[in-house]
């Protein structure tokens, strides 16, 4: 009886592994070559390793939570997050393709730390700027910016210029898909110097 159960479990395990591999081959193909429906390869802009473009125009996506990624794609598709480049891509991808490619990207190794942080950036990330009501970034985004669930993406290794651009977008209201307006509240209260410091901090952080 135990043997049958064991054999069954093994068979099931193998099946699951095959499915995951099959899924990943689809996700991997979309990431590296694009989709049949015409969405270009993610790697073309986000880099072969998904670590983002050096100028930060295209963010690091490698190792981000799959549900967070899927939510962003859904928001690009609906126009809830406005981005000229990502909107047609998100519209071209089917739900199944989104599931496959976000799973693939989430499983990629996190981007390497880059540059150096500062005392100011470290303080905002780990303690916050409570004099203006801003909590520590790590209180939601996890220790060292490793991310927390689907709502709070990993920040460690993210391009500093991309982080700075998102703050500008939240402040201006051109990005507004943050849950409960949490990032808008932070962006309204941090100075540009604070944002630059904390962006450099996370680009230099290791997951």
């Amino acid at each position: 009886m135990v043997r049958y159960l064991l054999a069954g479990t093994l068979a099931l395990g193998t099946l699951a592994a095959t499915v995951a591999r099959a899924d990943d081959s689809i996700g991997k193909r979309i990431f590296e070559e694009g989709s049949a429906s015409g969405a270009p390869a993610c790697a073309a802009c986000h880099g072969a390793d998904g670590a983002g473009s050096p100028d930060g125009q295209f963010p690091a996506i490698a190792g981000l939570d799959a549900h967070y990624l899927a939510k962003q794609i859904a928001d690009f598709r609906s126009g809830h997050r406005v981005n000229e480049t990502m909107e047609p891509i998100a519209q071209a991808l089917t739900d199944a393709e989104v599931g496959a490619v976000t799973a693939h990207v989430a499983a990629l190794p996190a981007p390497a730390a880059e540059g150096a942080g500062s005392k100011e950036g470290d303080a905002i990330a780990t303690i916050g700027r409570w004099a203006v009501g801003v909590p520590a970034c790590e209180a939601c985004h996890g220790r060292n910016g490793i991310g927390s669930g689907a709502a709070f993406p990993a920040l460690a290794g993210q391009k500093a210029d991309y982080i700075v651009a998102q703050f500008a977008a939240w402040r201006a209201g051109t990005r507004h898909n943050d849950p409960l307006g949490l990032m808008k509240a932070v962006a309204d209260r941090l100075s540009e110097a604070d944002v630059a410091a904390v962006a450099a901090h996370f680009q230099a952080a290791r997951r």
Partner: protein
Amino acid sequence: MRTVVTLAALVATVLPAFAEGAFQPPTAFPEGPFGEMVAKGEAIFTETGKNAPAYVGNGLSCRNCHLDRGRLADSAPMWAAFVLYPQYRAKNKSVNTFTQRLQDCFRFSMNGKAPEADSEVMVALQSYIYWLATGAPVGKKLPGQGYPVLPKPAQAPSPERGKLVFAADCALCHGADGQGTKAADGSYQFPPLWGPQSYNWGAGMHRVNTAAGFIKANMPFGRGGSLTDQDAWDVAAYIDSRPRPQDPRFTGDVAATREKYHNDTDYYGETVDGQVLGSKP
């Protein structure tokens, strides 16, 4: 409809007061052995379960209810509490020292065991808190002390309405079931608000008025002051009418315990969803 209300609140960008002119605790740790003890105290304060495991019986840390490491005005800051002891407390009808007050936090809010007065945990915490209160006038109630006292709500607090507030404004971090959210290392990223890993039926936060004041001033985290008073009262009623660990003063009988220790500001002994609150350990 709730989304509309939330967005409206957002547009209004209601900023909390940040207690203008509030007392400023020091920032740089002192030098030497005393400074080391202060640092140890801060580490216990911020990660209590990890750094004082013998005395903690749930998933909470001091910093969960005392934001910014016990420094934030309107979040029951330590610098304001320290200078008000010894004081008479109606809770136990006797004069308590600050040591006894801290011991109560462990017994009730941390659902654990009171550290002995001369234990290192107590020495470290008191060193940290004493240092935070550097320059604060003894015996003076400072602005930002405790949690704000909210005016009585227009409508009696309603767990039913509060459930909707919770789903819209709290579940993102605390989980749809209020059990908190854990980080990859197993520690709590966001604290559990009821159930076995939360504060027990003797903690101050189990009183709806206390929770409402805390919530109004400080929640959603990073957007304190943005809920209406009514929403704060309602969601406090919802959270504090869920099951939680037994009151350590339990006499063996819920009705008798309710009579002796609980009053009209809390739900202990009431029947909610077919369960008498406090009837299960």
